[in-house]
């Protein structure tokens, strides 16, 4: 399978297999005009299988989203066909307007203008809780 290498853009590598589509959705990559490739289940010596996302444009990506979905991923910035920068990702302390609170009793369900903010409350178990009602974020939302 051939995926063209990119000249100027972003490669999100070392994504745990199965998390690529979720990242694609939460990063709103479907709204981009440029070429975007999601490569699933790539053989990896370290990870067994992994996903990769290639974005053929130098656009700002929300690092917090990547840290939330898969803190083990790496972000490579490509300039003139070579890697100019490699960023390791960590779990963000807070997440704003990335996921929504699913608690029907939460104030965010009625106050439409409110930001949906989640705070990392348990790093070991990757638990985020809504700052308003403290409901735990479901990892599949």
């Amino acid at each position: 399978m051939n995926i063209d290498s990119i000249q100027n853009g972003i490669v999100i590598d070392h994504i745990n297999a199965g998390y690529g589509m979720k990242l694609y959705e939460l990063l709103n990559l479907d709204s981009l005009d440029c070429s975007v490739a999601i490569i699933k289940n790539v053989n990896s010596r370290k990870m067994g299988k992994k996903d990769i996302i290639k974005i053929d444009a130098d656009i700002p990506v929300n690092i917090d989203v990547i840290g939330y979905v898969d803190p083990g991923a790496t972000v490579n910035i490509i300039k003139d066909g070579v890697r100019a920068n490699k960023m390791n990702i960590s779990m963000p302390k807070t997440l704003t307007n990335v996921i929504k609170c699913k608690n029907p009793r939460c104030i965010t369900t009625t106050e439409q203008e409110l930001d949906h903010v989640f705070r990392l409350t348990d790093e070991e178990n990757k638990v985020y809780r809504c700052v308003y009602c403290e409901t735990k974020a479901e990892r599949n939302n």
Partner: protein
Amino acid sequence: MRSVIDVLDLSIEELDELIHTANDIIADPVKYQDVCRNKKLATLFFEPSTRTRMSFEAAMYELGGHVISMSSAAASSAAKGESVADTAKTVSCYADIIAMRHPKEGAALVAARAAGIPVINAGDGGHCHPTQTLADLLTIYREKGGFNNLTIGLCGDLKFGRTVHSLINAMSRYDNIKFVLISPEELKVPSYVKKDILQKKRIPYIQTTDLEDVMPQLDILYMTRVQRERFFNEEDYVRLKDSYILTPEKLRNAKADLSIMHPLPRVNEISVAIDDDPRACYFKQVLNGKYMRMALILKLLKEASRL
């Protein structure tokens, strides 16, 4: 601007300070009768509540202050679609401090972030009710002389009961505390309370469905009401509402110095025959609630440099 949304917003030292102030008010109420002269408390109750609202109002009057309020959510701008944040900003122009109850969880935090004055959460849905916990803590302090070395039985709705979660959180900060959690299977303490508080802090607890079996161990028995408004399904409410009813017979094996507490209102969880038992503390709790609200209003107004 300092507000109190959750009882954990207050450190142990601050809780001690509030208890000290409340005890001082009890000892010499005249000393405090004018300290809030010309200050206004706004009570914003978007959900029906009589006792908490009256407690806040009585607290402010006993401090010599004034109270302004909206008669009900239906009569307020909220009915016209005004946001909680806008309501809080508007009321900040009229009052020095806000006490707010709202059916949505997190509403008090939204108000606190928007308001230019301190906000006290008087209950945000099933989430937090810090001044009820303050009432509970003053009661425990006055009845037991402190907070350490206690076995606390919590009985009834431990799933939706916000006062229970707050009390577990608050008491888990003290030494040699043991919890006995008594509830029907469907109303057990949520797993996050067990995991994030009890197990994390290595606090011993047991779960049981049998109240009489554990009665002899208890220093405090905290009864709760199964609340209709927390259920989406009426059938579940009807099935569970009479799970535990405390009667004099069930107290047969209880300690002589047991303290029986309840956040009130009760429906039928505690037989009225127990009201005259010297171990019944629930009406003292109501009174203690007013004193702690007085202490909290004073503290927040001082911190906001409004006193």
